[in-house]
């Protein structure tokens, strides 16, 4: 199979995997475009922010810095905090993105929660180069976000369908991918640690500042328990439960 054909096939087969992201990003992207418009930033500004930073939740936070006083340093620190989870994603994808050559820059540049969630869990279909597949998923998710936020800026005001609750698609996506992750004993333990640490941090630190403490707890528990966890089977259990 030629390189080009493999890439085309990757884009064809990756599309269904990204449909949940399409629904979720559509809602959130339109909401973002609308929010930007309401602050005096038209669709091209939404597009510019999405195209260069591509960091959904932080883009929403950044809107609060676009009015009032000019605070570049604060916004930089806030970005580091909100996006610190990318460090985890990077560490997790070191192996999978290894040897991706010309795609590598884009795979790293386009890393977001949803792309990470899919690329770290998905079984790449047979006959497709895994790097092509990861690239296709990344590009789809990026396009969904850009088109949606642009649309939000343009036609958002005419949107009359009641979409309340549609953003649950992203929650459902993470729930499903969480279940998919539990197929090995080692991951099941790690998944429980993740839920436990996040729930604990949420109770202690509250909704606005629990992510960083939760990640610290996850890291500590994984490191302290590295021996027992490493001794667990990393291969799939027979039943695949």
């Amino acid at each position, binding site marked *: 199979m030629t390189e080009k054909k493999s890439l085309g096939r990757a884009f064809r087969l990756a599309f269904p995997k990204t449909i949940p992201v399409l629904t979720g990003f559509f809602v959130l992207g339109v909401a973002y475009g609308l929010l930007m418009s309401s602050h005096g930033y038209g669709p091209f500004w939404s597009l510019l922010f999405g195209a260069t930073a591509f960091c959904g939740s932080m883009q929403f936070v950044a809107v609060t810095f676009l009015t009032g006083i000019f605070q570049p340093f604060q916004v930089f620190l806030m970005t580091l905090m909100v996006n610190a989870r990318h460090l985890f994603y990077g560490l997790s994808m070191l192996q999978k993105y290894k040897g991706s050559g010309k795609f590598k820059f884009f795979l790293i540049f386009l890393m977001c929660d949803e792309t990470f969630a899919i690329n770290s869990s998905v079984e790449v279909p047979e006959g497709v180069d895994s790097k092509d597949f990861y690239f296709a998923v990344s590009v789809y998710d990026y396009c969904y976000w850009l088109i949606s936020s642009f649309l939000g800026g343009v036609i958002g005001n005419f949107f009359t369908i009641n979409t309340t609750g549609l953003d649950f698609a992203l*929650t459902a996506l993470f729930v499903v991918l969480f279940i998919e992750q539990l197929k090995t004993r080692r991951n099941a333990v790690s998944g429980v640690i*993740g839920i436990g640490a996040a729930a604990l941090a949420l109770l202690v630190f509250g909704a606005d500042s629990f992510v960083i403490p939760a990640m610290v707890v996850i*890291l500590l528990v*994984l490191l302290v328990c*590295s021996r027992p966890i490493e001794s667990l089977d990393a291969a799939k259990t027979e039943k695949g439960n």
Partner: protein
Amino acid sequence: MRLDTFQTLGILACVVAGTMLTRFLPFLLFPESKKTPKLVSYLSTTIPAAMMGLLVVYCLKGVSVASWPHGLPELIAIAATAGLHLWRKNVLLSIGVGTVLYMVLVQLVFV
């Protein structure tokens, strides 16, 4: 009042710089040419499952258990999504049904 164009671009530059630092740092610290330390490979295999758990909790952070409807729509929709997924193992079906159910719950049932 929104910032002027120059200041807006300044804010954008800071957001991009901060975001890209978090995205590229792991790959700069552990380049392909060097052997990845064992501890780092261990973390890279165990972190995804934990992070997925964190992301689920993150999506639910705004849910108030203390006040009506006590997180019931989320609980019901997640149970349906998870149950359906364990049963049929069809990603789109699980997410589709879960999402539509949630929309019905928040728009029509728990209003």
